[in-house]
């Protein structure tokens, strides 16, 4: 390319990167909450209904699943984490000097994988929430353990 020529090149990267940064900050808060619940639950008592058990025990898990707030938080965290992580993976792959067609294929593949996982994770969170809400509403129902 010589002086004066300006190639029309693929755009959008500014937007993707800005959301990648924003997602990172949001994940810091939400994953921080998740880590505090899972690993410092005994210390903080945060979202731990049965303090004598492990924070990750089925009973404690069950109680968190019943919470609409936490279900929404987990779905949001999943979406943000998938976007942030898969964009990061895309960044690393794009720095390996791929052909433009391969770059496009990589982007498409990552978008598909991300959407599938988000869909699956959302289904699992909603199903767990509905199941837990049912069990908490009907304590006489038998709880099937692991």
């Amino acid at each position: 390319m010589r002086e004066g020529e300006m190639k029309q090149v693929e755009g959008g990267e500014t937007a993707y990167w800005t959301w990648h940064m924003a997602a990172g900050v949001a994940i810091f808060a939400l994953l921080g909450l998740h880590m505090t619940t899972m690993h410092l639950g005994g210390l903080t008592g945060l979202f731990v209904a049965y303090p004598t058990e492990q924070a990750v025990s089925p009973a404690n898990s069950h109680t968190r699943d019943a919470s609409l707030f936490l279900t929404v938080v987990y779905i949001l965290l999943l979406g943000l984490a998938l976007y942030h992580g898969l964009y990061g993976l895309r960044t690393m792959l794009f720095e390996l000097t791929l052909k433009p067609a391969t770059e496009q294929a990589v982007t498409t593949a990552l978008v598909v994988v991300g959407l599938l996982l988000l869909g699956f994770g959302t289904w699992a969170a909603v199903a767990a929430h509905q199941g837990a809400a049912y069990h908490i509403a009907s304590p006489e129902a038998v709880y099937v353990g692991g």
Partner: protein
Amino acid sequence: MTFHILRYTPGKDTKPCITAYQVPLKLGMTVLDGLYYIKENLDPSLAWRSSCRMGVCGSCGMLVNGLPRLACNTQIKEVADTRVALGPLPNFDIIRDLVPDLTSMFDKHLEVSPFIQREDEVDINNPEGEYYQSPEDLEHYLQFSFCIKCGCCMAACPTSATDARYLGPMPLTQALRYNNDSRDGGAEKRALRIGSRHGVFRCHYAGECSRVCPKGVDPAKAIQLLKRQLVAGYLGLARRRKPCGKQGLNRR
């Protein structure tokens, strides 16, 4: 002092190999002085680029004991006690011995249109007066205008090591140099290439470019400031600036 130099002669060697030379050390001797000693006394076939021998032309960039440096600017005693390892700048093809092929760097430099762009082309081609610029306006881009295009930053950059299409620290710094110049109005046009898949967002602040820059240009800082400009533009927070005129000063 032993100089271990990576030699490569096209047409004769299939791959680069190291040749050792014994160079008598004098106080104050630079790596470039050592190379001249080798060429004049030991091996006249050794090839490298140099010109000003005082750190202003950018010709003698090479790998000195693992770091890209200017040979004329590097005192031997500063980097080694007994052994100096020299190689051509990495991330560029080798033409011969210590001579890298810098064409890719200059092509990328051209991609960011490193010149003043204004809409009034008549005035650009037939200027009738000077453009006024205050000392504050100058400070916004002066640091980045000290670049001597030596290529050391490109050699040190981890992204440039694998991504052949990445613009690299020097072109991106020069893009900011012109974006920040109050006489220039070409920031939006440059944004197309700078904000592309292999533009400014492939930098992750490893900071090596600023560590090795021999002129204190701080390309790492320039690239982050460039990202800020692009993100501000995307979020609609950018202040629109018209290029400065000929009457009075254009206050930011």
